């Protein structure tokens, strides 16, 4: 630690998103520029984890003013140093501009994307250097663990978590305190604790961001859980595709060991805890708890029937508690701030906050943490900044590949575990994909089912065969060969797969299909009866394009872009499109200078 005081801290986000948009070279340029201006001793550069606003990366925040710069490139560094760091003038062109109002916002608390958020799990992400244990400690880190280990008995800890109403953030929403109680009650000479950081949902990256941005919070949450259930050994199961998360977690474990926060006799309490990292190969089903434990044991990552539940017979046959990354990230807050403060956030049956990965046809994609009970509308339109290019909202998909799609009528729905289940979808791990009027819901259902079908481990028949048959039917419908009775068949198959599959993968795989049939049945019917895809996505169904001969000026622009050479003609004479060759991709339409092309 350096003793002298820096007058200013420049925080550069080096989360995976910002690194891919150039944060590392940005940091190097800043280092050079500071040295050239003799400012290195006055200004400290801090690498932080993800701010959730990767869309606008690389992100830089300058303290003490707290000015938020986005999309900063190396070329901007000289100006930032000269103007801001030397002369104290904000570089306005790098400030964030609200998409709706075009207003420039200097400080990040005032940006609509952050204003409505409440950060517990992500509290330190983007604020501290994740590779510096002292920064975590400076903000009160490890005090919850210290308090638990030295002042509370195990049952008190379990009761606190029960009273907090915390539910698992990994998908199922099972009450965490109750799960800990089961594991605590199991008598055994050895128990294990697991953190599930497999994060298999396509597009989800909340767990990765927490591990990258605040790894000590996970270690602390696990320490508390291990003490509560009586485990002395733990695993964090991370997919190998998360190299930065693994690197930072490894560093955090090393530093915690050095400080005696992991290892033997922690806080002189007599409690020992050893933590390992296990890298997974990235199969979706390995996120399922029994498959995950098989994978740690070196077996094939396939689920096994429950019961017995992990709390009774888990890893290597010993009682085991398994929770998600975000679940553990909430633990230090609950211990430090108390149950009342936690339950005051959120709704009756779902206390606290939830992190969502907001993606799709929306202006501000990114990671957002909001209190449970926030409405879909607030997340999509206020935090997400609405849909891009003035498009109309059509549906939002929550819960990842096994969740469901909700239509516009549900925009006012307060988001919590139970409200989403009632509406036919689920919380899942927090994926949220926004779709606009150009999305075909049958195609969306087919996309997700295609994912779950290919990730099905093949062990149980309903999931292996059932999802395959459902996918065949969906392919038929989107190819224009849908038959009378297909919808009913999908519903019947879906219900059977849900009720008879071995694990959560099969039990939820039909959800995208069932929910789109429920809310967008007319689109299925249009595909089957009228051989028409209303959104114009399923190209086999879309009508061929035609050229209005009267209007055509024979410029040949359309023919040049046609990917299948369906357009022919002579310059200055009307062109024609061969309807048998046309795939209705629509590429020609915007090219026409006189609007002579339309879909027939």
């Amino acid at each position, binding site marked *: 630690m350096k003793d002298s005081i820096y*007058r200013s801290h420049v925080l550069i986000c080096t989360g995976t998103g910002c690194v891919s948009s150039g944060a590392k070279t940005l940091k190097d340029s800043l280092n050079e520029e500071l040295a050239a201006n003799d400012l290195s001793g006055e200004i400290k550069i801090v690498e932080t984890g993800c701010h959730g606003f990767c869309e606008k990366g690389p992100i830089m925040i300058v303290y003490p003013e707290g000015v938020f710069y986005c999309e900063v490139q190396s070329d901007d560094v000289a100006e930032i140093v000269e103007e801001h760091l030397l002369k104290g003038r904000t570089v306005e062109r790098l400030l964030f501009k609200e998409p709706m109002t075009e207003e420039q916002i200097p400080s990040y608390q005032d940006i609509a994307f952050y204003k409505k958020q409440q950060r517990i799990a992500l509290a330190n992400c983007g604020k501290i250097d994740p590779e510096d244990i002292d920064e975590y400690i400076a903000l009160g880190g490890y005090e919850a663990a210290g308090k638990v280990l030295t002042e509370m008995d195990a049952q008190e800890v379990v009761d606190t978590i029960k009273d907090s109403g915390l539910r698992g953030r990994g998908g199922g929403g099972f009450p965490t305190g109750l799960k800990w109680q089961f594991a605590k009650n199991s008598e055994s000479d050895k128990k294990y604790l697991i953190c599930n950081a497999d994060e298999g949902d396509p597009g989800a990256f909340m767990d990765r961001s927490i591990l990258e941005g605040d790894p000590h919070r996970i270690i602390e949450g696990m320490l508390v859980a291990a003490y509560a259930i009586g485990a002395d050994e733990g695993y964090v199961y991370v997919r190998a595709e998360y190299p930065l998360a693994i690197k930072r977690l490894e560093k955090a474990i090393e530093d915690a060991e050095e400080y005696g926060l992991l290892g033997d006799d922690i806080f002189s309490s007599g409690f020992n805890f050893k933590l390992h990292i296990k890298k997974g190969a990235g199969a979706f089903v390995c996120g399922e708890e029994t498959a995950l434990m098989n994978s740690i044991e070196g077996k094939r990552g396939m689920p096994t029937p429950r019961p017995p539940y992990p709390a009774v017979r888990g890893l290597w046959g010993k009682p085991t508690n398994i929770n998600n990354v975000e679940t553990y990230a909430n633990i230090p807050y609950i211990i430090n701030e108390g149950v009342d403060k936690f339950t005051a956030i959120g709704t009756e049956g779902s206390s606290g906050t939830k992190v969502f990965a907001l993606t799709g046809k929306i202006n501000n994609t990114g990671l957002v943490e909001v209190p449970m009970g926030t409405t879909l509308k607030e997340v999509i339109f206020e935090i997400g900044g609405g849909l891009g290019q003035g498009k109309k909202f059509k549906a939002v998909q929550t819960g990842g590949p096994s969740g469901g799609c909700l239509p516009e009528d549900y925009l006012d729905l307060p988001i919590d575990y139970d409200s989403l289940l009632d509406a036919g979808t689920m919380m899942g791990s927090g994926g949220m994909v926004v779709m606009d009027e150009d999305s075909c819901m049958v195609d969306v259902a087919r996309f997700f089912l295609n994912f779950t079908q290919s990730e099905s481990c093949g062990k149980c028949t309903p999931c292996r065969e059932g999802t395959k048959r459902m996918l065949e039917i969906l392919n038929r419908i989107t190819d224009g060969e849908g038959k009378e009775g297909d919808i009913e068949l999908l519903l019947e198959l879906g219900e059977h797969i849900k009720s008879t599959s071995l694990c959560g993968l099969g039990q939820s795989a039909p959800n995208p299909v069932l929910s789109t049939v429920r809310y967008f049945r007319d689109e299925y019917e249009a595909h089957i009866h009228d051989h028409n895809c209303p959104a114009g996505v399923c190209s086999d169904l879309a009508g061929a394009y035609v050229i209005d001969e009267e209007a055509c000026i024979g410029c040949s622009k359309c023919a040049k872009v046609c990917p299948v050479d369906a357009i022919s003609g002579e310059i200055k004479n009307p062109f024609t499109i061969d309807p048998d060759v046309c795939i209705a991709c629509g590429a020609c339409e915007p090219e026409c200078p006189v609007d002579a092309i339309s879909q027939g």
Partner: protein
Amino acid sequence: MKSLAELKELRNKVQKEMKKRDQGTKAEIIVGMGTCGIAAGARDILKAVLAEIEKRDLDVRVTQTGCIGMCEKEPLIDVKLPGKKRITYGNLSEADVQKIITEHVVNGNIVTDLVIARHN
């Protein structure tokens, strides 16, 4: 880590630096760092401010500002205590900086003979 007390002791030690990122209200010293200020020696004034703050272990936010139109009075600094008027001092030497920090920032007494403006 042997005890919670030991952890808290470490926390106090490492906390100081993190206060830079604290957006709460605290005393602020603003150094005029326009081209005019820098020409008149504002860089040395800024360094003197930082040295004095460090010596006295004060929790003060130091920021800079551009030219405020009083170039002939540079180098300038402003002192803003929470809930008080912002005071501008001008024609400063490094010794003046020490005096301003001791008397104004620490003890709350404005150094009248160096003041060139008071703002609301």
